[in-house]
């Protein structure tokens, strides 16, 4: 049995390492393949302590296995009484001092990194986005730019983006595993963190603090584009005319329904910072419907018809009179054609 246990541990360790080296999980979601500054700093402080832990674990297991192999009760020596050792000062000193040193090895870089990631002294020189967490969606207001989006956050590569975050209801937590660690979004104060992405792409973001039934469905995306594309996107977004009437007849009808059914009361189109419901200015460009569904019209119709079945406990359910499938279809048509920019999650390489 003893041998088995020792081996099983070795095996576990080995698989652990193998998995680790191969990298695992979805590449735009996992924290193990950092694509941004915060995630890199965290990764260093994951790997280095892990190495120390593996070392310590090997030492512990060595003593353990040898003790179990050598000092099992032997046949024929049932009455053997081992020497009753009280202790050993030298050994005890060793295993007090070495862990202290190891812990210091971890502690020092941790403290430096903590201060590094909390540094917001340069916030004013960089892009600032006000992030509002809501049950169960995210609102992004680009400070001073008159740009408002929901669910999809666009940022350029290689630049720090400061997020000033507050919640409108309960506590949420803003997390994009491959770009940066998480930060809580509290109702009573503004928390600031910065993110900086190295590679273009669309990264998965998640809410990490239990916030109600649909907590697990409060996903969002970070669309990382090149600085040029970002500038392009900014100017596209700034030139949106919220009043513009779509060409397609169904979509026109949809727009009227959108207003008649008081959808507009909650959902702004344009740069209004109001955040009762998600801003829909660039809905047609969105990577998802409701943060989790494929961006198809069918999904949108389903959502409009019965949001409760998709996100239990959401605040849209019951906020408007019931709607026929046909009406929902028109509204969906209208929303899907809101595509103000060429720069989309698709172009960023979804």
């Amino acid at each position, binding site marked *: 049995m003893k041998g088995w*246990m020792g081996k099983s541990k070795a095996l576990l360790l080995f698989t652990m390492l193998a998995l680790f080296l191969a990298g695992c999980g*979805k590449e735009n979601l*996992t924290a193990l393949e950092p694509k941004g500054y915060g995630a890199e700093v965290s990764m260093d402080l994951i790997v280095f302590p892990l190495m120390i832990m593996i070392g310590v674990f090997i030492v512990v297991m060595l003593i*353990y296995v040898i003790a179990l192999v050598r000092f099992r*009760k032997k046949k024929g020596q049932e009455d053997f009484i081992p020497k009753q050792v009280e202790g050993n000062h030298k050994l005890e000193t060793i295993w007090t001092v070495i*862990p202290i040193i190891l812990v210091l090895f971890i502690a020092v870089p941790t403290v430096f990194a903590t201060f590094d990631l909390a540094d917001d002294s340069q916030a004013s020189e960089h892009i600032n986005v006000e992030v509002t967490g809501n049950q169960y969606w995210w609102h992004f207001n680009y400070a001073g730019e008159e740009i408002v989006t929901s669910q999809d956050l666009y940022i350029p590569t290689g630049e720090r983006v400061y997020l000033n975050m507050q919640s409108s209801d309960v506590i949420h*937590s803003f997390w994009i595993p491959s770009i940066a660690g*998480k930060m809580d979004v509290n109702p009573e104060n503004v928390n600031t963190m910065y993110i900086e992405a190295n590679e273009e792409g669309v990264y998965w973001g998640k809410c990490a603090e239990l916030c109600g039934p649909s907590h697990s469905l409060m996903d969002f995306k970070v669309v990382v584009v090149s600085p040029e594309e970002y500038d392009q996107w900014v100017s596209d977004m700034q030139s949106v005319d919220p009043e513009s009437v779509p060409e397609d007849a169904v979509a026109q009808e949809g727009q009227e329904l959108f207003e008649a059914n008081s959808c507009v009361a909650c959902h702004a189109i344009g740069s209004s910072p109001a955040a009762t419901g998600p801003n829909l200015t660039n809905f047609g460009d969105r990577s998802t419907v409701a943060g989790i569904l494929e961006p198809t019209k069918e999904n949108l119709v389903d959502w409009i018809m019965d949001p409760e079945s998709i996100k239990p406990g959401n605040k849209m359910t019951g906020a408007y009179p019931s709607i026929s499938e046909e009406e929902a279809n028109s509204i969906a048509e209208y929303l899907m054609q809101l595509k103000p920019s060429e720069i989309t999650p698709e172009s960023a390489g979804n």
Partner: protein
Amino acid sequence: MSIATTQKRGFGAVLWDYLTTVDHKKVGILYLIGGGFFFLLGGLEALIIRIQLIKPENDFISAGLYNEMITMHGTTMIFFAATPILFGLMNYIMPLQIGARDVAFPFLNSLGFWLFFSGGILLNLSWFTGAPDAGWTNYAPLSLQSPGHGIDYYVMGLQLSGAGTLMSGINFLVTIVTMRAPGMTYMRMPLFSWTTFVTSILTLFAFPALTVGLFLMMFDRMFGTAFFDVALGGNTVIWQHLFWIFGHPEVYILILPAFGIFSEIIPTFARKRLFGYTAMVFATFLIAFLGFMVWAHHMFTVGLGPVANSIFAVATMAIAVPTGIKIFNWLLTLWGGSITINSAMLWTLAFIPSFTIGGMTGVMLGSSVADYQYHDTYFVVAHFHYVIVGGVVFAILAAMHYWWPKMFGRILHEGMGKLAFWTFFIGFHLTFFIQHFLGLMGMPRRYWVFLENQGLDTGNLISTIGAFFMTFGVIVFLINVVYTAVKGEKAPADPWDARTLEWTISSPPAHYNFKQLPLVRGLDPLWIEKTEGNGKMTPAEPLDEIHMPNGSILPLIMTFGFFVASLGFIYQSDHKTWLLVVYVGMAIALGSMLIRSLKDDHGHHITKEELEREDD
């Protein structure tokens, strides 16, 4: 003998005996039964959680129900399973280990049990009307918004049981300070008694924070105060602080007795004195001390700022040092011993690597910047199940096999013991090891569903399979218990060739424990007598009559009063007539308190003649 007479009594008489008992051994058994029941319930909830997560976007249970499930699982396991089972063991074993006939406050002891039990029942009543759903940590303001009465049940249930736990803690402290047998100095106390002592100190200082937190929560929810109401200037972070000022010490309340249990079992089965006894005692105190200075490591992402995060990060990591001292002392106790491996020892040996892994992920979590990634993911879930299941649950199961003969006079079946161990052990690592990776791969905790195509499917499936293995193990253990009760081998006083005082008296012990208090001549008193003396303790006093407390039904009635009042509090926010229920409940509780203080109770005496008659 007295056991025989117990068996011959009718069911009603036995029941009445347990309902009114103030005997620390029976109270201990009540704790084990109550805690065991809640463990099964919590385990069932865990199983439901795992079934829901067996595949992506599963709809085995609804989103709301899932949140209720995790909340109840966490709350039940921590407050109503692990803690009370450990308190039951302390109740039963500690007085025997220090050579006492009783605890200092027998009445309070039984009151403590009933309060715990009624708290658990109250909490679980919420299943009928909607259980709490804001996680076991119950963060405001989510908990304030939660509709229905689920959270109210959580608040009142924990308040009741918290009061009970605090009482037990005080009781243990006074018992250890004043009731040690002659010659049992502090530095001769077995480690399980030491950890009981330190755990009680932790209880004493940690539970008041929870009490206050729950009070504020109760007032915010039921009476419209504004502690956590941001609109009126409240601050939700206060709840988080209060909860974790309690919550972190609470995890050491769980693990320290577990350490104590292992420190008893290892020397017994290695036939060797505990290596570095003094260092072990010292490390226990150090862990307790540091345990109060790290709570904000649960709040690294709250935005407390880099100074607070750094301080708490470093303090957290420091706990690795005293814990390491313990691990190495156990290893060195094994080293050079003559090791017997049976079920109790299997659980113990499995603990060392399992807990070490859990502790090491703990230190990794303590690195605040890394925690920005780990926090609220399955990595944390993996960490704490490694320390709790691999530490506390293993310890409880080890203790069951070790002390079962003492408590029930029969030895648990070895074959079934081993089967249960192996299935549970394998299942445990299957379930939780993979969760480290799930967390880092981007799976937050408390997720009702995980979406398809996120690379999380296989890991979750493996994890669920592991949970079924654990279930199998638990069921085998239950069968073992039943089998042993019916057919188990009878246990002698000292079946393991052990070292401490509890093994000097019959299994199970007479209700006064020691006919004559033993004279303790050193650490491991029984071992000393076995190697240097005649194998029996020398009495420290002549045979004389023994003073024992009287049983009483009042603790149960008092608890019933509080229970009723709690229900009243929960529903008075719907309709004020429920206040009547509060008054009735309080009247019952206060009335029985009054009776208790007005009616003198001097206890009873067991005469010398009776004692002599019981001499076989």
